């Protein structure tokens, strides 16, 4: 069987095959798959103008392949999934906002053709550091991705500049992208 971690899957199946309602908790450190150089984006200077300049969606992570455990979908039935995203924003000058979007897809689909799993706005205030920490539930489509052998991931940023005042200069750094999957036993 060309598979990864079969023994691990056996162990997981063992734990799930007993009586009771105990679960398999799968924590996927998605951020670890991303090269450190793409975990942060520096921007600016973005001049102030009305209407404000918008960058449009720019790929921070463009279609990264994520290797996961093979065979997990044979033993685990996903009950829920949530995505935990934390980011740190440092704004030197100016004000604006940045919209972070995370896309996930199966290995045959480009992630940017799907709806974003997470979409959150970081407000940038001149001279302030901002910490973003959000946990959002995801739907069953996303849940199934994390028990497949391989998935694809994209992260985009979309900047909106100031309408007045100083030009915007700053940095947004991804600190955590983690998927928490709760699964029960699938009959086998």
């Amino acid at each position, binding site marked *: 069987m060309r598979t990864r971690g079969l023994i691990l899957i056996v162990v997981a199946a063992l734990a799930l095959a007993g009586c009771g309602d105990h679960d398999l908790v799968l924590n996927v450190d998605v951020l670890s798959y991303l090269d450190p150089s793409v975990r942060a984006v520096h921007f600016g200077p973005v001049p102030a103008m009305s209407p404000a300049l918008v960058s449009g969606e720019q790929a921070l992570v463009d279609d990264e392949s994520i290797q*996961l455990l093979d065979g997990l979908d044979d033993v685990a039935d996903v009950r829920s999934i949530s995505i935990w995203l934390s980011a740190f924003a440092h704004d030197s000058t100016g004000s604006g906002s940045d919209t972070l979007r995370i896309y996930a897809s199966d290995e045959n689909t480009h992630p940017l053709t799907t709806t974003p799993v997470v979409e959150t706005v970081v407000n940038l205030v001149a001279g302030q550091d901002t910490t973003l920490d959000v946990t959002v539930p995801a739907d069953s489509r996303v849940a199934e991705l994390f028990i497949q052998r391989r998935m694809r991931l994209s992260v985009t940023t979309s900047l909106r500049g100031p309408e007045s005042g100083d030009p915007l200069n700053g940095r947004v750094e991804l600190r955590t992208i983690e998927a928490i999957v709760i699964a029960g036993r699938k009959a086998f």
Partner: protein
Amino acid sequence: MLRRTLTLALLVILVGGGAASAQTFSARRMAMGGVVLASGGVGSSGANVAYRAVPRTSSSCWTLPLPIGLIPFLADPPEFDSNSPDFNIYELANLLYNPPWNLQLRSPTAPGNDISITIGKNHLAVDLGDVKNLFPEDQSRIGAVLNGPAPGFGIRHFFLAAAPLVHFENDLSFNDALRDAIDGEEFRTNTTYEMLDRGHGQAAAGVHLGWAGPLVQTGDPRGRGLGFYAGARVKLMRGLAYADADNSVAFTTAEELFAIDPVNINYVGRFHEAGPEGGGLGRGLDVGVVWMAGGAEVGLGVNDIGTTFDWRVKESIAYNEPISGDYVQQVIARDVPLTSTVPTTAVANAATRVGRFEVAGDVVRGVNVTIWHLGAETRLGKILALRAGAFVDANELLQYTAGTGLRLGVIGVDLAVASHSRNLARERGLELGAGLAFYH
């Protein structure tokens, strides 16, 4: 295919992962810690052939064990369909440990914690919680030689009996890396994780030809007299079924745990098997002695000395095909001559009267395990008997037993309760055994 493989793998791990000793079917013996009963009680002549020659006491009887464990089993049978939400592999594995004969009064619950798997680009760890206790600490070796009832007849000191024999052994082990991973340590790069399982079993039926008689006997050996008894039993048998399997499942991690190419699981198995048509003759020898004097007795039985069977087996190998990953099994030879052995086992026992108590103890050297039993019995009049005992089981845990016997004329009822650790968690359970006794 994967699901069936998983189910089988789970049962191998679960059943192979724990040591277990068998249920005791005689309620009197069970109440006395499972000890070899003094003066040739139930099961004594199987353990020590010389007990065939020991004179029976006036209270000797033949017994009928009652399968009271069948009642809850039939009323609420386990779910065997793995697709059913009620399917519970722990329950099935425990059923293999505890066939539904004795009534299980208390069974430890299966571990019920969540388990957690943490995955990162080069990070993989699993936290099993209490579930990891189901896996053997190191090498797990179980096995037994089971000799069935031997109905037959005797002429003077010679006897002829028909008897089945079943022998099985299993040896399950993990390498250190896999053991560490099960204990919660992170999986490492460039490391081989391996599980080995070797097992074999054989069944045969045939006749026992033997002699058992007194070498010395003066007076009443249970009183002031002396008795020295010996016996030998030649087993002439025909093999009915044989199988052995030598399995290895391993994978080696690369420079990165989650490299682009998946890690290949390497499975290799080698099997030998034969049915009745491949069974040849088997032969073996049991010997025993019993010494009795002054109300005490000492016995030593050694069974399956040089017991071997000749087979003509089918040899096959199994592996996962490197390209497709499919499971492949190939027969590589037929009618291969093979000689199997049955391990020698031994029982040493002693019994004596201490005041109103009859006290007995034994040490059993079985297959890969040594177990000792200790029991006592006292009678209150002719009707009531009280019994208690203890034994160290195959998991090296001290277990306790107690019971009673009620005799009404020629019929008696025996009840026994005993603790045991025949379960996946190797925790203490409690069972009730019952039987009828028919006195001469």
